[in-house]
């Protein structure tokens, strides 16, 4: 009977799911590849990561060393596989921490508003002004370099950005009528944040998380460049590039492969984020 069925609607095939273009698929494939390597890499290394297996150094690709050897004559393939474990692991943990903290505080600031919002936003803005690498250096100088310290430092560096982003989104959602309705109903802040706001900013937040992941991989490699990072004999990719950078002029695979590894991961994350699968909305309105 409903007379509002007269409004024009296209046939909506339900459950058709998502559309996903080729570039995005390639990105996802590379990300998954590295994820698998990161998780199962420990069992895949052909040689122990710390063992000097080649009497030469910066040796080219060969049957026994698929990616050549590093400056000490260690097997690069093993080291890159191990590096995936650390690079992906550290970056993912940090980015998750940073975004979780940033998003929670961003939503609280947006919902509560007022002085809490102003002071927190301004402080974090100013904190953004401290160059991230220098901040990393100071922290590591203060408390030493270990994986937890590294993760926390990176998370601290990126939390303000995540906060800003989440706050801007949450402020928009907060003005929506459904939040007002919930408020008029008498709902408290935690409910508003978790049930009304969070689900509506989750998409962009996840995309932002991806981009931040890229930056963290790069900052991590920058920190490695300045001599901080994972403990030997393990190394993240940035550290691998760093320790073998002398091989660059020789075209040594020892420096080229970890660079490719970094670039492939970061580029594919970017490609994936830029071409996220879109939910199909077959509606003309």
């Amino acid at each position, binding site marked *: 009977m409903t007379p509002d069925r007269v409004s024009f609607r296209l046939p909506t095939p339900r459950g058709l799911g998502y559309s996903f273009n080729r570039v995005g698929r390639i990105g996802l494939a590379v990300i998954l590849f590295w994820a698998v390597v990161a998780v199962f890499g420990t069992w895949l290394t052909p040689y122990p990561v710390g063992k000097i297996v080649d009497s030469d150094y910066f040796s080219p690709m060969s049957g026994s060393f698929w990616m050549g050897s590093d400056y000490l004559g260690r097997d690069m393939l093993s080291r890159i596989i191990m590096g995936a474990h650390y690079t992906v692991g550290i970056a993912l943990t940090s980015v998750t921490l940073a975004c979780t903290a940033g998003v929670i505080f961003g939503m609280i600031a947006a919902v509560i508003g007022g002085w809490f919002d*102003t002071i927190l936003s*301004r*402080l974090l*803005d*100013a*904190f*953004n*002004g*401290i*160059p*991230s*690498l*220098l901040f990393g*250096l*100071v922290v590591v*100088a*203060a*408390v030493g370099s270990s994986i937890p310290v590294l993760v926390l430092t990176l998370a601290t560096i990126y939390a303000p950005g995540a906060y800003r982003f989440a706050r801007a989104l949450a402020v928009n959602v907060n003005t929506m009528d459904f939040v007002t309705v919930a408020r008029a109903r008498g709902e408290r802040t935690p409910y508003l944040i978790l049930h009304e706001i969070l689900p509506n900013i989750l998409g962009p937040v996840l995309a932002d998380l991806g981009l931040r992941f*890229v930056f963290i991989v*790069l900052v991590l*490699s*920058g920190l490695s*460049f*300045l001599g901080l990072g994972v403990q030997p004999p393990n190394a993240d990719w*940035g550290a691998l*590039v*760093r320790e073998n*950078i002398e091989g*660059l*002029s020789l075209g040594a695979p020892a420096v080229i492969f970890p*660079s490719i590894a*970094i*670039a492939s991961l*970061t*580029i594919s994350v*970017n*490609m994936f984020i*830029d071409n996220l699968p879109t939910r199909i909305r077959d509606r003309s309105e």
Partner: protein
Amino acid sequence: MPASLNLYALIAQRLGIALITLVIVSFAVFFATELLPGDVAQILLGQAATPQAVAGLREAMGLNQPAIYRFLHWLVGLASGDLGISYVNNMPVAKLIGDRLVNSLKLAGVTTLFAVPIALGLGIGAAMWRGSIFDRVVSMLTISVISVPEFMVATLAVLIFAVWLGWLPALSYGADVSSWATVLRAYAMPVITLGFVISAQMIRMTRAAVIETINTSYVEMALLKGASRRRMVLRHALPNALGPIANAVALSLSYLVGGVIIVETIFNYPGVAKLMVDAVSTRDLPLIQSCAMIFCVSHLTLITLADLIAILANPRLRHR
């Protein structure tokens, strides 16, 4: 209400907020650096540190006074332009920073001069011809650049331009700067590296900002008036995207002051970032604090400026 008065009030408010933030930040910076472990006296004496020598030096340097006293002293000094005396070599911090800051600003200035117009041009172009080959190439390039560690870009640039081709000097500082041509040569390498890094960000953000305004009704209206794509973008979309673009540029420039530690290291360029790293390794607190303040001040100045540009570019606020 009088338009200008309101505008001034708004500007004054932004400046006031920036100033208050600065005071809070100075407090945070001072006490955060105080928490750094390691004793400057001990580090100064290095391998020769004996307990008596350390105690004597601490006394002489006034390190035994309470922290809050030193903070107030420092803050008052800061306000009057006195940055204190370096613990390490007894020179005024202002003098130590002075030249370095000029160097940093020079590098930032030259990079800005080149990178900003190029980045804005490419960003706007990519937005104007959205979806074209040009747009795709620019987008892919920017993604590639922001995906590669900075030290790789720098080292590759040195290898190619200085070592293999021999076109440019590998070091930028201490080079011959007697004429414009030589200045350009000297700055080429770090500027290329930094230019790559910051343009990529600016291009992305400019493109996004312009595309956002292209999707507005008034740009569609321009199309329906028969305007060309160029006119639509340059006359209608761009002026309204100034705010976000200024913000993107401000963030990039802020990076140029303090975030260039890797470039300074590789090109042996004596800027403030390297100074701060040195200061950290020698626990030279007055120097660390001053450097940190410089970064915060420049960042705040830039984002406040961008904020003001956004306010001034907005006719609703300008012509009330």
